[in-house]
């Protein structure tokens, strides 16, 4: 899957972020969920939070980080959700 390939490309950053998590930084958790059916490929999310969102082969959004986001990315993820013209991103905190 293209999304997987992109995720591999992002691994160094993701790995760093996971490492930061392992040090116990942050007490609040955040996850993002993407409604793929609602996404029409604006890429507004990837512009706001390129560490969290990427693109598949059609340019539709994919989530690059499974599970909890590191706190350092919370603000960017909120911005990504708030910029999506299709309201396709939900944030669970």
């Amino acid at each position, binding site marked *: 899957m293209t999304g997987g390939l992109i995720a591999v490309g992002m691994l160094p950053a993701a790995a760093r972020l996971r490492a930061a998590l392992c040090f116990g930084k942050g007490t609040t958790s955040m996850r993002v969920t993407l409604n793929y059916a609602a996404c*029409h490929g604006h890429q*507004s999310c990837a*512009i706001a939070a390129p560490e969290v969102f990427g693109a598949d*082969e*059609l*340019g539709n959004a994919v989530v690059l980080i499974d599970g909890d986001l590191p706190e350092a990315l919370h603000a960017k993820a909120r911005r990504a959700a*708030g910029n999506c*013209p299709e309201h396709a991103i939900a944030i669970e905190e």
Partner: protein
Amino acid sequence: MTTLDPQPIDPLTDYDIFDRAFVRDPFPVMEQIRESECPIAHTERWGGSWMPTRYADIVAIAQEFETFTSRQILVTGPPPAQVFEGPYAGVAAPPISSDPPEHHWHRRLILPYFAPQSIAKYESITSDWCNQLIDRFIDQGVADSAADYAQQIPVRVIAHMLGVPTDMSDTFTGWVRGVLEAGLMDQEVRLAARKNILDFFRDQIADRKANPRENDLITNLLAAEVDGEKVPEDYVHGVCNLMLVAGVDTTWSSIGASLWHLAQHPEHRQQLRDDPELWPAAVEELLRAYAPVTMARIVDHDIEFQGCPMKADDRVLMSFSAANRDPRQFENPDVVDFHREHNRHVAFGAGIHRCAGSNLARLELRVALQTWLARIPEFELADPSAVTWAGGQVRGTRQCAVTF
């Protein structure tokens, strides 16, 4: 069609999208309509149309593709039944002119060419062209930021992408303006420009069939199959038509309007110098504030929409710049703020017809502005009153002299 009348009397019932004052600055009129008791205006001019001005209504129309069809997407023109008469009757502009179910594969086939990872390769050649254009005028201390720069960039990128001669850029630009500018007020001009475009791509398609090329968009589309069958040649012809018509005037207008803005806002130029990480948000904010495109929809069946009695075959305009200036959606919408926290703008539309070229347009806008600011960090409008704008379907500067 009506001819150019004196000033519109009441924008709510008689707006004129080609009125010179409206083209130059549509936002006060949009606001007047938006804040009235009837935020969806109507006019009989130019074949008649409805014009919603609130974000929620424009987005709803974009999403309701079964009621608001894409049988015709130009802001003026003949009734839909007459659109596909004459030469090239079967050639439209898919997927922008398509409705489901065909829309799905019409769009699916071209999206991979415009995904972010696909268009990244055009950055360096775009930057080269921008630098070459600036080389032509940087020693003169004055330049037309619209005609000598903005207008010159997207046409080259699109020609390069289609594998057609980039040195024909002025010819292509003339054809596109024939469809999207003069042609909107004169059907004969529009049809002549359309014929030029389709004659040219008919020959390009014949050439690719005789001499297939490697990594070539037209060659690849001609070989594409859907459900085990080759796609119709009219589809490929239509995609070429769309890429030229939709990929040139629009992005150029966005670059031009952004330079017009930056010429008047040294503090924004400074912010971009001080914090290069601001660029992605700045591009989105400039797209929001100066969204160039107005698309049209044709109403499928009689319907009452927000109290407006719309009839089958009525035309509805979706001014994305009107949506992007709605205070119900954006705080201080008339203020350009590169630090805007939430920017759910719809410069590229919304729903199934979201601009397929949006990633490329953003790249061109960013590279054009970055290259300009790197070479010409300080500049101002030579004469604000001499700036000219095109409007109607696509709004942007057409003459915009700056000094530096």
